[in-house]
């Protein structure tokens, strides 16, 4: 009689911690996912510490100190761009924009996708059917042309780019969440909850959503990868925010001044390598997470 009974909240917290610990242990066994996580951590650190690592003055075209497209030197480890700015400085500050837009776009896409997927899976009858149809219709609209049209109509700003990517990429998530919701809905414990008098809202928010969440999370990581790739492509096509430097806009500059014909590799290679590293890391982490939450995939 020495142990005091735990309150419901304490039990809940213990269970959650336990589950988190198990997930982490599972995740740690995926070497590629772990490598991805470390690389990502590095990039996020650089993005957060950008003001410390490189003076933001280095972004100003008028205050540039280097020559035009100068090769790597002690002063400019990665050379200079066509305005005489240090490519390394641009790269560090570009990490901020690229990651920020990628994450924001993913958040938008996830919110729309999860809401639509949950509702269309949970509510049978016409609301669900209409939402499902809508998702299918949106799915066939080609992503890049839609993004181009939207971006050109909405104008060029960071928020718009994120919005465009988010709006163009939610249907895939919605379908995934819908199928997951449909399978969870049939489980016996939901019937039990219903018999005990749980309402629709309670069922959805307390029973279905928490079970769909791990899947959403794994999918999010994969979506970030695509969002960053798209941001890079849209910026490369000149649809990014003209006042901010991102990896895509650097490559746009490099292409415009013909860096590949003049042999200025330091202006083309580093931004692309950064994109590949970040996208690959997100993909690896996402795949590892997918295998953790969906054991069926594990034998691959």
């Amino acid at each position: 009689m020495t142990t005091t009974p735990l309150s419901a909240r304490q039990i809940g917290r213990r269970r959650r911690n336990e589950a988190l610990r198990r997930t982490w242990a599972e995740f740690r066994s995926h070497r590629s996912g772990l490598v991805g996580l470390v690389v990502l951590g590095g990039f996020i650190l650089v993005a957060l510490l950008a003001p410390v690592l490189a003076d933001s003055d280095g972004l100003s075209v008028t205050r540039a100190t280097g020559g035009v497209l100068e090769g790597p030197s002690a002063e400019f480890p990665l050379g200079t761009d066509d305005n005489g700015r240090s490519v390394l400085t641009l790269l560090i500050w570009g990490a901020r924009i690229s990651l920020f837009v990628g994450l924001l776009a993913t958040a938008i896409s996830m919110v729309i996708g999860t809401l639509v997927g949950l509702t269309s899976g949970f509510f049978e009858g016409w609301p669900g059917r209409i939402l499902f149809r809508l998702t299918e219709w949106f799915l066939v609209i080609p992503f890049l042309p839609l993004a181009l049209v939207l971006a050109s109509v909405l104008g060029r700003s960071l928020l718009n780019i994120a919005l465009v990517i988010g709006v163009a990429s939610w249907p895939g998530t919605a379908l995934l969440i819908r199928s997951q919701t449909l399978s969870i809905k049939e489980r016996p414990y939901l019937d039990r909850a219903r018999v005990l008098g749980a309402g629709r809202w309670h069922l959805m928010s307390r029973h279905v959503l928490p079970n769909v969440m791990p899947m959403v999370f794994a999918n999010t990581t994969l979506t970030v990868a695509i969002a960053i790739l798209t941001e890079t492509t849209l910026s490369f096509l000149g649809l990014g925010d003209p006042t901010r430097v991102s990896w895509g806009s650097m490559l746009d500059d490099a292409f415009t001044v013909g860096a590949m014909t003049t042999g200025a590799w330091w202006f083309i290679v580093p931004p692309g390598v950064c994109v590949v590293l970040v996208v690959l890391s997100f993909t690896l982490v996402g795949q590892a997470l997918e295998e953790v939450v969906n054991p069926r995939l594990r034998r691959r």
Partner: protein
Amino acid sequence: MSATLVAAGGSTPTLRRPSYAKYVGGRVLGALGSLAFVLVVNFFLFRVLPGDPARTLGRGRFRTEEQLEAFRATYGLDQPLPQQFLTFLKNTLTGDLGVSLRYRVPVSELILDRLWPTLLLVGTSTLLATIIGIYLGMVSAWNRGKTVDRVWTGSTLTLYSMPEWWLGLLLIATLAVGFGPVPGMFPTGGLHSVDADPGTFGYVLDTAWHLALPVTTLTLAYLADYALIMRSSLLDEIGEDYLVTARAKGLRDLQVRRRHAVPNALLPTTTLVAINLGFVVSGAITIETIFSIPGLGLLATEALSIPDYWVLQGVFLVASAAVILANLLANLLYGLLDPRVRT
């Protein structure tokens, strides 16, 4: 749930799968619905989004109120929205996509003109990527966990994470311009040499020479998808019982793979290829831009800078229609190959 009981021969009821014709009908209806939706989106994207369409479309080109009025009258923007929608529907269905603000020729002509380079580029790349991708996926799956698998899966994942146009830029810098000891061997862009004579064999060779780098770039970009999906669907099959049966019958491993596992694993890959075919325009946009190939993609990016809305709208329409058509094709093919999906 849709398997129907049919009295066959008048006496014994047999279980029959829904007919293919019914399946086709359903899919075609679905595709028509998608097409209608795309038309609606197309209409609203360009007319209802923020601001006055006349001002957006004219982007500062009009200074006086009269000019604006004239512009509105020309494009029918002064009429009520439902009326505009009907006009838009009628025009689109009769193939009238408006007149390009830049080229001053009908958009439909422009699109037909630019369609062939895109089809040539994307068609060749898809064909190559499918063959190489499926082969790589098979090799990886047979050797799961071994070095070959690690190397191929690693490379395909890296390719998948790469903006395809960046790869193109690198290829231009090394193989077209020449870098260090590597001499420039290919043209940096375009579809033909200026002096090439159409209709001769030399012309074909010249085109192939110009397309070598862009096709390589797109092939590498596409094959990652196919290799990854082929690998995972083969791995899915490998655990199945029918393969054990086949082996128990005394078939050799090679036969089991070739005759039993691969055909089944090809199903998802076929669908992916068909669906990807629909994304011709999307894939071509950046590659045509960096290699300046006069196709639909380049048309779209050129239209962006004006911005030439009617061209953008036309390309968007063609791009969406292509995806819908490809999806339909994929579904019909899948229904034919795998009767289980005819529900």
